[in-house]
């Protein structure tokens, strides 16, 4: 039953090789200590909030708020939604690029 519900939201083609950040407000978001830690992990693979909790030791509520910020600024997206064998919905997040380069001219 669970396998019937497996679905994908984002596609791997959504992941770019590189994103140049030229906006200073966006750079501030990326440079935020906890957001940077989360983003770094999502460069490698798609992870759920529970996976991120185990990896970072952060509170899931805190992770969710940082993820929402990252999603709002198009730095992270929901890559897929899976269902456990008990039909528990699991959202997997992934960074929108493999590299983020900050390039700001003052």
């Amino acid at each position, binding site marked *: *039953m669970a396998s019937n*519900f497996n*679905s994908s*939201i984002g596609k791997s083609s959504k992941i770019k090789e590189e994103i140049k950040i030229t906006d200073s407000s966006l750079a501030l978001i990326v440079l935020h200590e906890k957001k940077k830690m989360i983003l770094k992990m999502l460069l490698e693979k798609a992870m*759920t*909030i*529970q996976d991120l*909790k185990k990896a970072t030791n952060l509170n*899931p*509520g805190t992770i*969710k708020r940082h993820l929402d910020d990252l999603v709002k600024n198009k730095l992270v997206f*929901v890559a897929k*939604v899976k*269902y456990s*064998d*008990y*039909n*528990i*919905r*699991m*959202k997997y997040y992934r960074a929108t690029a493999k590299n983020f380069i900050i390039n700001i001219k003052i």
Partner: protein
Amino acid sequence: MRSRNSFKLFTETKKDFKNSWQLFKENYKAFISTEFFAFLSFISIEIIMFSLIGLIYYLVPSLSLEDFWFIFPQNFNISFIFRFITIFVALIILFAFLNCQNGLAYDIMSSGEMFAEFKSSFTYFRRYWWQYFVLTILILMGWFLGMIIFDFDHNNMGSPQTITLDAFQIGWLIISFLFFFIWFVTFINTLPSITAQGSLKHSFIENFRILRKNAKRLLTTWGIFFLIFFITPFTVSFITIIFLPSLTSPFLILFLLGLFISFLAIIGFPMLSLIATGIYNNVEFERFKPFPPSE
């Protein structure tokens, strides 16, 4: 074939408990905070109301305490308004808030984030407070009707030291428990359904659809739940009171009652919400809004 079916049934029940326990361990803070807030609100409203009595009684010398509480008050309107606010409003907040745990269970299992936060309880309270209250009253009616069936001897209730049960009374006690159990199983699926569907009418229709198609699973899972959270503490308390009368004192009864309620509140209620939501998400029946929820 039959043994294979019962094996499958027990596997599903085991899954209900195992997954719910796992999720409870990971999210106990949100559940316990919700319960704590519900009981605190209830107690606060009662304290405020009783303080108000004192104030009104002090300011209006013509009023007597009988106007507030007695069966045939001199001033019916004051008594009615006072009773309505103290009992009804306090119970609405208590029951509605306790049932916001169904919303937390829904967040954990269906939102995709696999966790719940205490503040979500307020969102579910705003959204479904009266529906949760109505459904709680409906489910608790089974308990009251069960007690009416048992028709506990009034004289025995007064003094715990004199409680004696013969085989006939024990039989009625079991029947009243069974009645509450059947009533509970009949209506419990309305709670996860109202959280997912948002309509009282739809929740009743879905409840009976689940019951019709999955009666065996419901009876097995909730049977074990009752055995753990109701029958065992109740039996232990009764055996202590009846067979160890020398130990029986009002303090012991209060202690056992406190232990029973704490066990039910701290572990029982969150497990109830998680198991009910888990069953709702896992059984097959015709739903009004499709599962999984759309993005």
